[in-house]
């Protein structure tokens, strides 16, 4: 049973103001209907201002990053329907600005720009128009996604590309997906308004299982639109047998076509960056993936790697930095770069231990002291050089334990290590102590 999946992905573009007026876009922080004007609430006589050029530029960057063929101009259309969150009674939506792109083996059918509607609360019957008019990009794939895993991979890569481009919003609810899933030879089911990329995976997994079960049970089912319940991770029927709605698309006379600038510049994208860094710094595939999981982190790595051991640095990034960031659920911050640079240098020169490195980095991440100050204050520097003397002293002072160890008692060695660790207040590296002890005894 072959699964066929197609996605329609809506992402809010990152702009200061709305698509056709000067209202602010920080709708999550604003009071109800604070960010509105006569234009975005469609008062009689209001007209759309000149289109927000930043929004168009951002959208074109996304289309280019998805390898789309970029059209020469943006043509705005009106998509007509009645709903309380749509004050004009139509939504402004452009003709495709890019077509025929590709990502993760999936063809991107088209990319276009449109206005976000307001937010209508079914329970209270009230509408908040703060969101109304915020620019969105819609990315439509061909039904070429093979299963929920493939969809996950596709969306993860898309999310990474969007983050690299720095052109879209990242707040919760800023990305919404409609997913179509069918089992070959069976009716098509659309799951509407999934409010996160993570939800898409859950919804698709659920749908795939549900539909396959129906087929195995020989239960017939028809084409329908379903709603995704994020909490339960299930889908429920919204409406059966879709009659094709007629939106009466027509060009918007108030918005003259706008030429798209040629040669849009986009930064190096995650995939080519991964491949290049793997080669250039002799990294493992996994290390490269971790380091390029954030553009700023990759930039930091490359900056430091210019004058330090890349392999050791990769270990620091993957083993300590990424782990600590993930643990806190935060992103890489540029202020960490000089700290990491200091840590890397001192690690390389054996002035600090790996354990201390982690402590210093944690302090830097949590907004505390600089690496150097913290290391000095906690007396973490120079542990490596002092440790030789400390080990010799410990051997001298504990002849019995040394004798026992020589006789083959492993426990005696642990006793000695414990003594040394206690002296260094745990700052020493256990492996180094072990190695030195074995040598000296």
């Amino acid at each position, binding site marked *: 049973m072959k699964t066929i999946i197609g996605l329609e992905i809506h992402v809010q573009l990152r702009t200061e103001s709305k698509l056709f007026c000067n209202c602010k876009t920080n709708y999550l922080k604003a009071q109800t209907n604070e960010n509105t004007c006569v234009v975005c609430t469609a008062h*009689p*006589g*209001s007209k759309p201002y000149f289109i927000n050029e930043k929004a168009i530029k951002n959208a074109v960057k996304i289309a280019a990053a998805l390898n789309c063929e970029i059209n020469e101009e943006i043509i705005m259309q009106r998509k007509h329907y*009645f709903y309380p969150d749509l004050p004009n009674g139509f939504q402004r939506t452009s003709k495709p600005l890019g077509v025929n792109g590709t990502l993760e083996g999936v063809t991107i059918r088209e990319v276009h720009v449109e206005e976000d509607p307001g937010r209508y609360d079914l329970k209270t019957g009230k509408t908040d128009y703060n969101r109304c008019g915020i620019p969105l990009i819609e990315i439509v794939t061909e039904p070429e996604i093979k299963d929920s895993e493939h969809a996950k991979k596709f969306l993860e890569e898309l999310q990474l590309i969007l983050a690299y481009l720095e052109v879209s919003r990242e707040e919760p609810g800023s990305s919404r997906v409609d997913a179509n899933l069918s089992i070959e030879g069976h009716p098509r089911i659309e799951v509407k308004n999934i409010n996160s990329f993570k939800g898409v995976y859950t919804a698709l997994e659920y749908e795939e299982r549900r539909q396959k079960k129906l087929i195995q049970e020989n239960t017939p089912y028809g084409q329908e639109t379903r709603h995704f319940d994020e909490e339960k991770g299930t889908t429920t029927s919204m409406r059966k047998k879709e009659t094709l709605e*007629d939106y*009466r698309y027509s060009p918007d*006379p108030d918005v003259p076509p706008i030429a798209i600038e040629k040669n849009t510049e986009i930064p190096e994208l995650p995939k080519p960056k991964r491949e290049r860094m793997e080669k250039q710094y002799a990294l493992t595939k996994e290390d490269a993936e971790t380091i390029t999981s954030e553009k700023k982190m990759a930039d930091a790595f490359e900056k430091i790697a210019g004058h330090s051991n890349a392999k050791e640095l990769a270990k620091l990034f993957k083993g300590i930095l990424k782990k600590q960031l993930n643990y806190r659920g935060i992103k890489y911050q540029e202020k960490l770069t000089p700290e990491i640079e200091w840590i890397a240098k001192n690690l390389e020169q054996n002035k600090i231990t790996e354990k201390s490195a982690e402590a210093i980095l944690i302090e830097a991440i949590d907004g505390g002291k600089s690496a150097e100050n913290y290391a000095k204050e906690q007396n973490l520097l120079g542990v490596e050089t002092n440790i030789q003397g400390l080990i010799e002293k410990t051997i001298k002072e504990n002849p019995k334990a040394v004798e026992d160890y020589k006789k083959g008692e492993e426990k005696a060695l642990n006793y000695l290590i414990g003594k040394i660790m206690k002296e260094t207040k745990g700052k020493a590296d256990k492996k180094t102590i072990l190695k030195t002890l074995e040598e000296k005894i």
Partner: protein
Amino acid sequence: MKETHEKLQKGILKPSENLELKIKKIEENEGKIHAFINIYLEEARKRAEELDKKEKKGKLYGLVIAVKDNIAVKGMKMTCASKMLENYLPPYNASVIEKIIEEDGIIIGKTNMDEFACGSDTTHSAFQTTRNPTDLNKVPGGSSGGSAAAVKAGFCDLALGSDTGGSIRCPASFCKTFGFKPSYGSISRYGLADMAMSLDQIGVFSEDVYGIQLLFNIIKGDDARDAVTTTQKQSTTKNKVAIVKEFFENCDKKIEESVREKIKKLNAEEISIPSLKYALPTYYLLVYSEFASTMQKYDGLKYGSKGKPGDLTETVSSARSENFGLEVKRRILLGTYITSKDYREAWYVTTLKARSAIKSEIEEKLKEYDYLLGPTMPMEAWNIGEKGEPTQMYAADILTVPINIAGLSAISIPLKNGGLQVIASQGDDDKLLKFAEGLEK
């Protein structure tokens, strides 16, 4: 009008004195003419008193201006002569109103019109029928009939109207006054309630060309809040004018004589523009489709009496059916029909093709001639109640609609019988007005 302006500028006449002269006329005759939907005497008097004290005089200092009731003036109701907007109070000023206020004009009130500008005689207002000041049994023409009547009756010095297919020139011709429809995009439409967005244009009524030039020069120009406004270039003078043969087909003989008499010294060449025969159907199909789209916003949720409770479709339908007049409903239904999926290719797409054919044929002629001449209306004002069938009314627009289809500039100059329409290229507004000044004497 020129005299009043000069007296005000010289300080011989005070704004409050000028206003009282107008109010006297209103008190005498408005009860018979019904030019205004809402008059704001108190506000106007307050404003005039303030202006009396002002030392630095703006260009419209103390002039009394009437505004068609589809142009937004903050604090004055904008009904569009519809029950749907009976109590709508715009929270903002149209761009043209901002400029008028800036130059010390006094806005006296909002004038009657056909509902949402749908009509050619101002009998399609939800509130009242305006009568022609030159003959109270006759219609004033439309849809800007209230503004034309107000100027003719001396209720104001100048008036603003809007022209989508002749809505300024028709009442100017019927009321024997001057009416100017500038090039598309020469004046901001921001604040003008839509009729057909690709055709709508704000324009001016005055009893002389001087007044038209005065007001036009103030309200013209680019506006970031209306994306179709453009800086327009004036063409070079060719010293050639033409009369268009087709303009005299089915034209009242007396009007034809008056027109030919008026222009006999101009050595006009007679030319033919065959595609003009498609102008009327092209115009109405464009109007229907754009009008149906823009009227979507009136869903009964924000404006007009609330629709019946029920599902969204029932509520919206009942609100629209209660609050809209017959002609408005007819246009919405026809527009929805011709833009629907099954019919748009046959109707809408064909209409767009016809539009570009007509436009390019007229533009071609205007490369050769500075001005095209002909009657404004093929008939004199008809009696109130005479034209019952919509097709009879539509036929009257035959000479004015081609100008909107092609985005041109045109003025109607009153003659003994009917009016003379002078047409110029898009962008030639100032040039046309200078030429009209010469014809005035």
